[in-house]
């Protein structure tokens, strides 16, 4: 048992580190650019040097590297202050789906531009009536000649307002049971009939959008998978949710809370001397360390050629509620100044309060706490699925509530 790289891994890590040291954009290079331009600049630089989308085949702009190289690259890149990526959905979810289902000409046309950051993609899946129960989506697609006409509404679409292309699941046949009547497409986000409205979040940000479709026309050649096979194609997209490994997570974590507890006072003594404070901090330390070492175990398995499975849901299931609780606790440590988020005077320039307000979203986006527990229960422990009252019933006869 040790934490060392194999000789090959060590060589790769060294190579990655050397390139990053020489090529991470400097502050002056990025000055005056908005976050999308910054992200594009960094992505293009990686692409040109063969450090983008490491696991993709070289012909599509990747490096043809293994899973372990990807992990090592991620660890090394996270040690540098690099522009935040806006390509995660395109590269992590759209691309694997295109690789499995798209025609060769489309792969050649789209994948290199995804790798280089020239084109940004979004994912048009969730709907007002289809969240955790994604297959309950209602956006209609109807075939007319060589085209499909799409009407309906998507929601929670990250980055729709700056995306060039999107992946889209629709209901092509409402008269069959819900999983059987779906059809999957990709489309240009500038297609006439698409209207994008930002959603203001409780945190004040607006990263998500509502996307309305009014008689939007999509060529049949942009269908991925067979008509009615949209659910199977969607599963390919969802299976590629990134396994988060190694990254401890910046922001409100044990380190921040521990340092805060050393600084603020309880009854004229540093809060860290308080037994109740120590007990709670210890519990979070154990969770963070547990996730870190679970990641090490996963990496070991990958290093031996195994593929990580649904057990990786543990990261978000533990991390998201922990972040919320820690932000709340840190504000308690600040006592009567806890609510102040004015960056001029707030502790950590308001990061704690911002985290507190963003945390509810973390527990919902990309699989709610409850869905993650279902995944662990069903796919790791092997417990049966819940009874589905809509099973086998034509979609247009399934009872609907508010939505």
């Amino acid at each position, binding site marked *: 048992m040790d934490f060392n790289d194999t000789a090959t891994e060590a060589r790769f890590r060294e190579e990655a580190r050397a390139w990053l040291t020489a090529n991470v954009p400097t502050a002056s290079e990025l000055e005056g650019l908005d976050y999308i331009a910054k992200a594009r600049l960094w992505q293009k630089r990686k692409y040109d040097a063969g450090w983008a989308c490491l696991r993709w085949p070289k012909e599509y702009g990747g490096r043809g590297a293994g899973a372990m190289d990807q992990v090592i690259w991620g660890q090394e890149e996270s040690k540098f202050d690099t522009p935040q990526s806006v390509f995660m959905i395109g590269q992590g979810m759209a691309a694997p789906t295109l690789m499995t289902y798209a025609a060769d000409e489309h792969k050649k046309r789209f994948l290199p531009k995804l790798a280089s950051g020239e084109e940004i993609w979004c994912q048009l899946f969730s709907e007002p009536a289809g969240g955790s129960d994604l297959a309950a989506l209602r956006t209609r697609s109807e075939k007319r000649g060589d085209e499909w006409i799409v009407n309906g509404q998507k929601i929670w679409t990250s980055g729709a307002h700056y995306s060039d292309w999107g992946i889209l699941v629709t209901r092509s046949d409402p008269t069959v049971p819900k999983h059987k009547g779906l059809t999957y497409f990709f489309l240009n986000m500038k297609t006439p009939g698409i209207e994008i409205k930002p959603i203001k979040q409780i945190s004040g940000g607006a990263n998500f959008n509502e996307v309305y479709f009014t008689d939007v026309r999509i060529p049949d050649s942009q269908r991925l998978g067979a008509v009615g096979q949209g659910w199977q194609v969607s599963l390919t997209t969802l299976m590629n949710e990134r396994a988060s490994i190694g990254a401890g997570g910046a922001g409100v974590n044990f380190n921040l809370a521990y340092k805060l507890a050393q600084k603020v006072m309880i009854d004229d003594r540093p809060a860290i001397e308080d037994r109740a404070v120590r007990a709670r901090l*210890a519990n979070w330390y154990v969770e963070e360390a*547990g996730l870190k070492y679970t990641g090490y175990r996963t990496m070991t398995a990958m290093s031996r050629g195994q593929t990580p499975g649904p057990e990786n849901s543990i990261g978000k299931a533990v991390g998201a509620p922990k972040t919320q609780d820690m932000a709340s606790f840190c504000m308690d440590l600040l006592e009567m100044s806890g609510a102040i988020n004015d960056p001029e005077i707030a502790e950590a320039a308001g990061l704690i309060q911002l985290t507190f307000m963003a945390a509810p979203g973390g527990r919902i986006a990309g699989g709610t706490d409850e869905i993650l527990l279902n995944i662990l229960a069903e796919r790791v422990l092997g417990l049966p699925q819940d009874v589905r009252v809509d099973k086998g019933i034509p979609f247009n006869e399934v009872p609907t509530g508010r939505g």
Partner: protein
Amino acid sequence: MNFEFSEEQNLLREQAHGFLKTNCPPAAVRKILEGKASYDEKLWRQIVEMGWTATTIPEQYGGLGLGYLELCVIAEELGRAAAPVPFSSSVYLATEALLLAGSQEQKELWLPRLAAGEVIGTFALAEGPGRTSPKSLKVALSKGRLRGTKIGVVDGDIADFAIVVAKSRVGDKASWYLVDLTQRNVKRSVVSTLDPTRSHASITFRSADAQLVGADGAGWALTQKLLDRAAILFAWEQVGGADAALNMAKEYALGRYAFGRSIASYQAIKHKLATAYIKNTLARSNCYYGAWALNTNAAELALAAASARVAAIQAYYFASKENIQTHGGMGFTWEFDCQFYYRRAKLLSVNIGSESFWQDRLITAVEHSNVA
């Protein structure tokens, strides 16, 4: 990255698992729970024959000279089986104490006999309710003889000797003494506890013959060191037990039907068991790190030990109580085995310091390290 047990160690795990499945089934645990015997003597003999008590004892003292990763593997399986044997007292505590601080003569005299299972050892710290400290210690040497009472010493009734923490006037105000418990000046009485599958005794020293272990006035520092090392091995037992409790709950839920379907299909049960899985996984991963730290005697040992211990206490408590809950009324009956884990989880969690004791030590370890 090679954060995994080796093939040989996994083979040992399979062997230990198979052996205990055959020789320590729930019926064997129940026999000790309901009977008069203090421990399963036959099982203990077999464990000794397999060499488990000799695992980390160097070959020069009649041991196998294996590493701590092997001992962690064995600990997990013993915990899974809730084995009614004095392994933790004799191996994680008494053997470790002698390896830590025993003189050449003490090691030569006791280690080969511990390895061969000719003697059982234990460790005696507590003297009453609450947390023991050098100040609270009353057991002390008087005119070269040991006097005072230790209460609720695990395996105190069957052990041949104990490492006793006694008051000292010098150094850190505590010293270790090796005491032959079979001598006339030692009075032992069995104490009933929450977990009758692990026997306890109160031990009174009436001018008992006692031999200093380590330096006079070094006993408190040694105790801390010993507890750190033992915490990792206890934590592995706890993880094994937590895993067994989760499995038991899962198997029962799958086969139990209510309102026309398996209760394992209800989210209330699924989420409960998934939460147990999460706690067990976090504990296991912390234990991996603890195993590594113990095996390499790493500088991070104290932090690794406290993390493994806190996580394992929490995981086993949760899994054992929710196992009963998943079983419903049947889980509360004497006939069902759910009680084994519920009892053992609590016993192990107070055995070498409670959850809050180890939470506090964890933060102390962070304060002493430059990790944070």
